[in-house]
């Protein structure tokens, strides 16, 4: 049984560029949440998608946007990248909008 799959695993982008990260949730899970984890810190909530709608949003600017597809997979888009956006981006899926997450291994984004 595949868990949460994220792609790509690593990414290097230039300041000002745009990036799209992808996530396939665990089988049977219909809710996807995205987290940003800076080095040495705990994950910070970006937003959550359920039934193809953004249900909750953390304290992140509009440069961060997302989408959920009918098959429950999700994308995270970040525009106008800043050096401070360098982090590990984690996708977590859950059955329903509960906090019982299964996390993917993340996408390591480096902005230079």
């Amino acid at each position, binding site marked *: 049984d595949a868990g949460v799959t994220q792609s790509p695993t690593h990414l290097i982008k230039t300041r000002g560029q745009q990036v799209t990260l992808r996530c396939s949730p665990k089988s049977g899970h219909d809710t996807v949440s995205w987290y940003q984890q800076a080095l040495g810190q705990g994950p910070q909530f970006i937003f959550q998608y359920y039934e193809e709608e953004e249900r909750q949003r953390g304290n992140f600017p509009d440069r961060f946007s997302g989408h959920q597809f009918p098959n429950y997979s999700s994308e995270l888009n970040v525009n106008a990248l800043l050096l401070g956006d360098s982090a590990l981006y984690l996708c977590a899926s859950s059955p329903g909008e*509960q*906090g019982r997450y*299964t996390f993917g291994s993340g996408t390591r984004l480096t902005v230079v």
Partner: protein
Amino acid sequence: QQQVKQSPQSLIVQKGGISIINCAYENTAFDYFPWYQQFPGKGPALLIAIRPDVSEKKEGRFTISFNKSAKQFSLHIMDSQPGDSATYFCAASIINTNAGKSTFGDGTTLTVKP
């Protein structure tokens, strides 16, 4: 405002010893308290979780103790092993109102010496 405070930041324990990590929260609406284990290069993995209607939950060598009045909860790892060396995160969320985002602590890096 940091709603979940975790301590210590790092912990070194001898093999066979007990590891204890503490967390304190502020929002009394939180009703689900998981602990996650994260190895380098991996995402966090759910270890054990507790709801506020019980004071303790045990799964194998891992125990959560919960003190609702003090708004504190802790993870105890009995008979700690070198393979337990990882970063541990506590978290808190509200699940009853379909607001399932989790607020994480800053993590504790555990090193178990052989």
